[in-house]
């Protein structure tokens, strides 16, 4: 039998630096899509064939009935599937320069434009709604295969969805924003820079395999050409937020970073430890040590978690420490998304 490194075998023992490096490089490729079809396997194998045929026959009969009855009962449902229902909330928004008078539809590939005095409400298929606020330009880019996607070219939106994670996404010049079953707001300026504010659940910001997970009550900034900003709670001090912006998007020279980090650590509260923990993943050396020491002052390590382990990014220890923050566990949110929002 091979004398295998325990860390390679089951993650126990002293971390192997090369294995850790490869995990870090390859983890962005990990599969995380939810199931997009509803044919779940039954528990009894032998009965499957019969059940399958019965289900197929029932589905065919239902489809025939619907096809016969639908044109009379709900003609609106026969509109092309690759479009979303839209109605003005105020003023007269435009679709491809044509004013929207009442209820209409926004087809895939077309642009919705709201002026200074207009806004609109879109239905995201059957999974939620999207408010497009004044002075916004939004293109519907996808609405098929269980995926709903828009591109926000500029302006602001508010989305509320009721669906498995990654069903709804918003593209912008600064990256992709994917909802994990939640409510959030997003703004994009003329230069493509923006901010995402999460009202409930979690949102993931992603660009080129760099991600930022933003919990309810927090926000994160995005800029074209940069990795998504580190999430922060909006009730943190203005100095904390300004220092974080320097660390995320400022010049990389050591003196500027050191000054920004010093301000950030001085202003941090226990609630801001989530931000410090997220920064850990992007820092090295002395910067990482300072982040760990300050965060541990604010939220002490639980039993079994050590400074050395956290500095080495030991996943089990980081998870145990993270549990002390009292935030919803993002994995639990994934699994129980149906229970997370009231009907």
């Amino acid at each position, binding site marked *: 039998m091979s004398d295998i490194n325990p860390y*390679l075998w089951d993650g126990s023992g002293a971390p192997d630096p090369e294995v850790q490096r490869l995990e870090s*490089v390859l983890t962005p490729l990990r599969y995380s899509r939810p*199931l997009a079809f509803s044919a779940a396997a039954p528990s009894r194998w032998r009965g499957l064939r019969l059940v399958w045929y019965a289900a197929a026959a029932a589905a065919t009969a239902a489809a025939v009935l619907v096809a016969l009855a639908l044109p009379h009962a709900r003609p609106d449902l026969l509109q092309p599937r690759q479009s979303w229902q839209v109605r003005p909330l105020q003023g007269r928004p435009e679709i491809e320069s044509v004013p929207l008078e009442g209820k209409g539809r926004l087809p895939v590939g077309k642009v919705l434009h709201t002026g200074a005095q207009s806004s609109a409400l879109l239905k995201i298929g059957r999974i939620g709604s999207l408010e497009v606020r004044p002075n916004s330009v939004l293109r519907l880019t996808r609405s098929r295969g269980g995926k709903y996607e828009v591109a926000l070219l500029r302006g602001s939106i508010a989305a509320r969805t009721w669906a498995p994670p990654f069903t709804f996404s918003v593209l912008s010049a600064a990256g992709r924003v994917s909802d994990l079953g939640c409510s959030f707001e997003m703004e994009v300026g003329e230069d493509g820079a923006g901010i995402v504010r999460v009202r409930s659940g979690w949102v993931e910001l992603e660009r080129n395999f760099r991600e930022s997970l933003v919990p309810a009550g927090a926000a994160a900034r995005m800029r074209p050409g940069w990795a998504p900003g580190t999430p922060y709670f909006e009730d943190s001090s203005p100095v904390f937020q300004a220092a974080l912006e320097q660390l995320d998007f400022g010049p990389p020279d050591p003196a500027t970073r050191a000054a920004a980090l010093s301000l950030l650590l001085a202003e941090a509260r226990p609630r801001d430890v989530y931000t410090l923990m997220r920064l850990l993943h992007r820092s090295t050396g002395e910067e990482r040590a300072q982040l760990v020491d300050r965060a541990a002052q604010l939220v002490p390590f639980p039993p079994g978690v050590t400074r050395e382990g956290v500095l080495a990014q030991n996943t089990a220890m980081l998870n145990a420490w993270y549990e002390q923050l009292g935030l919803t566990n993002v994995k639990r949110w994934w699994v129980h998304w149906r229970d997370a929002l009231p009907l």
Partner: protein
Amino acid sequence: MLYQRYARVVHAVLLARVSPADADDLVQEVFLRALRQLRRLRQPGAFGGWLMAVARNCAHDHHRRRRELNPLPADVPVVAASADRVEAEAVLAAIRGLPEAYRETLLLRLVEGMSGPEIARRTGLTADSVRVNLHRGMKLLRERLEVRRS
């Protein structure tokens, strides 16, 4: 649920053979195909290994379909890849160059984050086989990455 239990296994098998984007897209096709072919499964206990075989066939069919399509025109713009992405692709290419048993087991461990015992449970391999695949596969991978670096 079977999907939750085996999606990462299927993904790793696909990732050993097709691009990351295609692997993501093919996972659900593998499950649909498996459900349609389920009557061919003689021993429910061997589901993991059988599903992996379905995934390998699916990847094979994918390559065959690709060959039947016309090649891309030469002037397709190339999107600049980030350094992270380039490194991930380089490591993935090195893993794809390993023998099949090593490459699938390593992808399950390094990409999908499964432990050795979990890989054994899901794939139907013995724990000793997984141990050997991980140990020898990692040794080979280190050597090949070292050659690339130098």
